[in-house]
Structure formats: structure tokens, C-alpha cells
């Protein structure tokens, strides 16, 4: 089961809403009302510093669920999400999502696979970024 199938199974979210490039889906620090299934288009994930500095660090594509870990942890979003190319996005209300998992335990493994992929992607970014930062420091 991919992200789309899980979302449809747990929330009945068959269709999504169209978002235009530049629109902000959620902001870093916002409490998660739910997760966002990206059906088409691309979204930029951005870190923002208090100083105002903003840095895109990853692109999300169709089939990905944005904000999934925030919903699971019931914690504020750790980054912002901004539409890069026109998207169709289905919103899955957090409580509906978690309640759906209680009644459909078979969906759990798919959710764990999605979260595991997010962890792997984050470790990959860490590896690449640390190599870049350390080699930059060594050259200085």
C-alpha cells in the first residue's frame, strides 16, 4: 500500500484540492491538524531560522504524505512546506487518521514503511550535508 492507498483507506480522501505555486501548506512551528497527501505536483520543504533565513532542503513528490511524523508525535511541524509546481493535495485529519489505524491494523506496516523512508532520507541528507560542511571548513 502506498501513501495514496493508505490515505484513501483511512480517511476516504479520494480527491484533493489544487494548490498554486508559492502557496504555503503549513509553517514550521504550526501544530499539525493532520497530514497532507500529495497526489500530484512537487512541494519544497524549508527550514526557517529565527533570523528569517530560510533554506529549502528537500523536494516531496506524488505519493508522499507530508507532516506524517508530526501527526504521530502530536508535535509542531519541524519545517515549512511550500508548493513548487501546481499540486493536488488531499488533507487527512489527524484524529481520523489515527482512529483509522486502530480499526485497520494492516495499514500500520505501510505507515511504518513511509516513516522509515523519511528517516532514511533524513539520514541521507545528514550524510551529504555534513560532508559538504566539513569539506568547506577544511578548505577555509
Amino acid at each position, binding site marked *: 500500500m502506498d501513501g495514496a492507498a493508505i490515505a484513501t483507506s483511512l480517511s476516504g480522501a479520494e480527491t484533493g484540492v489544487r494548490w498554486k505555486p508559492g502557496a504555503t501548506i503549513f509553517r514550521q512551528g504550526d501544530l499539525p491538524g493532520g497530514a497532507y497527501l500529495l497526489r500530484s505536483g512537487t512541494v519544497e520543504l524549508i527550514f526557517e*531560522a529565527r533570523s528569517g533565513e530560510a533554506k529549502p532542503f528537500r523536494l516531496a513528490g506524488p505519493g508522499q504524505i507530508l507532516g506524517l511524523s508530526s501527526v504521530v508525535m502530536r508535535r509542531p511541524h519541524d519545517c515549512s512546506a511550500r508548493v513548487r509546481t501546481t499540486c493536488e493535495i488531499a488533507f487527512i485529519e489527524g484524529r481520523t487518521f489515527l482512529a483509522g489505524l486502530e480499526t485497520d491494523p494492516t495499514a500500520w*506496516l505501510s505507515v511504518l*514503511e513511509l516513516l*522509515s523512508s523519511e528517516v532514511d532520507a533524513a539520514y541521507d*541528507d545528514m*550524510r551529504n*550535508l555534513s560532508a559538504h560542511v566539513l569539506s568547506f571548513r577544511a578548505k577555509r
Partner: protein
Amino acid sequence: MPRPYRLDIQDHCTACTIPKSGLFCNLSQTSLAALDEITFTSVYPKGSVLFVEGEQPRGVFVLCSGRAKLTTSSSEGKTLIVKLIEPGEILGASASILGKPYEVSAETIEPAQANFVKRDAFLRFLGAHADASMSTAQQLSEKYYSAQREIRSLGLSQSTSEKLARLILDWSERGETTVAGMRLKVLLTHEEIAQMIGTTRETVTRLLSDFRRKKFIEVKGSTLFVTNAGQLRALVST
């Protein structure tokens, strides 16, 4: 009877006498009994490698006592510590769930009991016990959060003193309150602290001396006291 590495070894989760602080320790009795059926009790000395980055996943380790570190290596061979693992956490879950090679290496940083569960048995266990799945999802999300925070600190223009201050503040959340300040046991060498914040050992030594001189912290052997958390917080900008 002699106790290996002076560890209080627990053979059964259902009869465990260690204070249950970790997410995986707080499963229902039914789930813990099922976990007991598939778990191999194992103890390790400090410095034991549980699995290596790139290795095919054999299964997961449930850390019962002691601590471990997760590390990764850049293409240039630099080591980065991505997370410290506390008792009650599982290691190797994402690789085992995805059936892909381990993304990180895991090594104990003190004597530890780390019970092994074979991959197939772990997946069957998750499929049958929703509370274990929820706990695993929370642990994966926590690892994701932790990794994202490192990426943010590496990617945004954060100074090394900010990063070190943030690391000490993170540790102090699990410290012990004393009259001298929050007390922490630091199990990492300066080299390993450097691997956690992407800098050199010399910089860590210099910054810790600087923090001591400014009376933000006090260090006695491997014990660190946070004497002025407010000043450390003031250094952290993100």
C-alpha cells in the same frame, strides 16, 4: 552469580525490574509476552558494534539497559553521530521494515543489554500488535525529528558554539537537578561530541573551556553541571 559487565540482566519483558521509561517498555502485557517469545537476550561490553551501515538487515535490537550511538560516514570517510539511543528504544527498525541495508551503524557506548529480534519475527509481531506498531511509529518519528534538527543546524548558518550549547541543553533534559545545576553524565569523548555537531575535536575542547570560563557549565571528570542554562539558551537561535 557473577553479573556480566555488572548489568542487571532481564530475561523476560513481562517480569522486567528496570524502571520502564522507554516507549517499547510500555506495551500491553499481551504484547510484551509475545515479544518475550521472539527475543534473544544478549549483553555487550562497551564498544560493541551491533550492526554496520550497508549491511543487510538481520533484525532489530531492543536496548534494555546501557546506551548506544548511531553513526554514519560521509563519502569522504568522516564519521557523524546521528543519535544517541536510550534504554527502551529499538535499533535497526527502519532497515528491517523496508528490507533495505542499515543506513547507520550502531555501537554501544557503555555495557548494554540489547535483545535481538529476527526481522521476520519482528514484522509478524508488528502486524499482530497495534500498540507495538504505534510505539515503533513514534520512535521512527522521533528519529526523523532528531535527524531533521541536525540537518537544520548543519544547513542554516548556525555557529559551532550554538550547536554545542543546543546539544548540552538537549542532554540536560534528561539530567538530574542538583544545587550546583543540572547534572549530566557525559559518556562521549570530545572527538565524539565533535562528530555529533560536525566540527573538530580541538574546537569542542576550546568551546567547553570557553563555556567553563564564562561559568555556563562546570566539568568534574565525566560529570557536567549546567550552571547557567539561560546563557546557553541565549546562544541558541533556531
